[in-house]
């Protein structure tokens, strides 16, 4: 580093500590050491002038504002959730009752109603933490063998009397909803169309996996992923043999 380069650097970054810069400062006999000291003096004056004290209790005031805002949002969210839950429950009971009378499988209707009630889940795009997924399943008494790939949403939900884990996956950018009904076993897989959604029910472990999407293109990937997670890859392979 020569004197001109040193002075340019000093003028823009007086606090720099690069080895080349420091070596030139300590070895130059053409006034660079003195220039460095002058620059440090100016820098101290600037730092001192800028160092105004923050108002007392600024942090506490911010925390109070945050706590107040958070409580207001929680109240609003709870009110909305309670309303949505009431509507879903009413819809579920109605649909369930109608389906029982008709002797039909209730899971598609209940699942579509719940999907509409929690439609915000379809907007999720970011991968979720494995820890969170495992916790949600653990809350339902299930230990996962593997993390389901491409999961972007998970929540344990009660759909009427059914205990489920509600998940959303992104397959080629499109959302696929998966609801795992714990303890409700069906005899065989079947496809259905309901409320404008394409659906598939699959017996899986000690429950039923129900998939919903705009079409069935992402179903195979999610079914495989959930099978690996709930039953383990080896068991799935044996099952296929």
């Amino acid at each position, binding site marked *: 580093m020569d004197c001109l380069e040193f002075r340019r650097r000093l003028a*823009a970054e007086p606090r720099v500590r690069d080895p080349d810069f420091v070596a030139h400062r300590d070895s130059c006999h053409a006034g660079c050491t*003195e220039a460095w000291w*002058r620059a440090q003096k100016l820098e101290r*004056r600037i730092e001192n002038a800028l160092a*105004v*004290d923050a108002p007392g209790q*600024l942090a506490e*005031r911010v925390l109070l504002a945050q706590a107040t805002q*958070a409580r207001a949002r929680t109240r609003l969210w709870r009110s909305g959730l309670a309303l949505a839950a009431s509507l879903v429950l009413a819809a579920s009971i109605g649909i369930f009752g109608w389906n029982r009378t008709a002797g039909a499988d209730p899971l598609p209707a209940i699942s579509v109603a719940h999907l509409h009630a929690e439609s915000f889940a379809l907007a999720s795009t970011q991968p979720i933490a494995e820890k969170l997924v495992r916790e949600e399943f653990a809350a339902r008494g299930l230990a996962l063998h593997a993390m389901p790939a491409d999961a972007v949403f998970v929540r344990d939900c009660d759909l009427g009397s059914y205990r489920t884990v509600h998940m959303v996956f992104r397959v080629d950018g499109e959302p696929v909803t998966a609801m795992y009904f714990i303890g409700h076993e069906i005899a065989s897989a079947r496809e259905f169309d309901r409320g404008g959604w394409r659906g598939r029910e699959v017996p899986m472990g000690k429950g039923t996996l129900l998939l919903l999407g705009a079409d069935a293109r992402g179903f195979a990937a999610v079914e495989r992923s959930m099978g690996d997670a709930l039953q383990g890859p080896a068991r799935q392979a044996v099952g296929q043999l």
Partner: protein
Amino acid sequence: MLKVSARQRQFDALVRVHAGDLYRFAYWLCGEDARAQDLVQETLLRAWRALGSLRDEAAAKPWLLTILRREHARGFERKRFDLSELDDDIADDASGIDPERAGTDAQVRAAILELEPKYREPLLMQVLGGFSCEEIARELHCKPGAVMTQLFRARQKLRAALDGGSAHTKEAVHGLP
């Protein structure tokens, strides 16, 4: 006993550690004590909503300062017509200044206030924010060389103002220190 979430604890720590630095940056950016406090609050509340995106503790301060700059820019657009009174407000407002330092600091503060925003902002980012030239360049969407020039000119102007307008001493050839 009240259970506090990990997210809330992280936010509390973030506020307590960085509120002072944010205030100083905001104060010199906008020049008003009340507006600076509002900016700090708006910045931290926005940070609370986006706390999940903060992965690295070391990145907290630059992250917060970036939010603050954007909040200020939004406010600047809204309050464009109030700016004529900006410098007068700062000159009159000596709150938070140590009285023993006020004499010498007043000269420097006045000189800083004379700086155009294009010189003042990178200087604040470097001195108060601890940003490197490369980081400032990324934030301001310009080249590092341009940032170095702005920082050089900012200090050149400050030095000239503090030397009574005569920066052309023997040691200050071409404005270099």
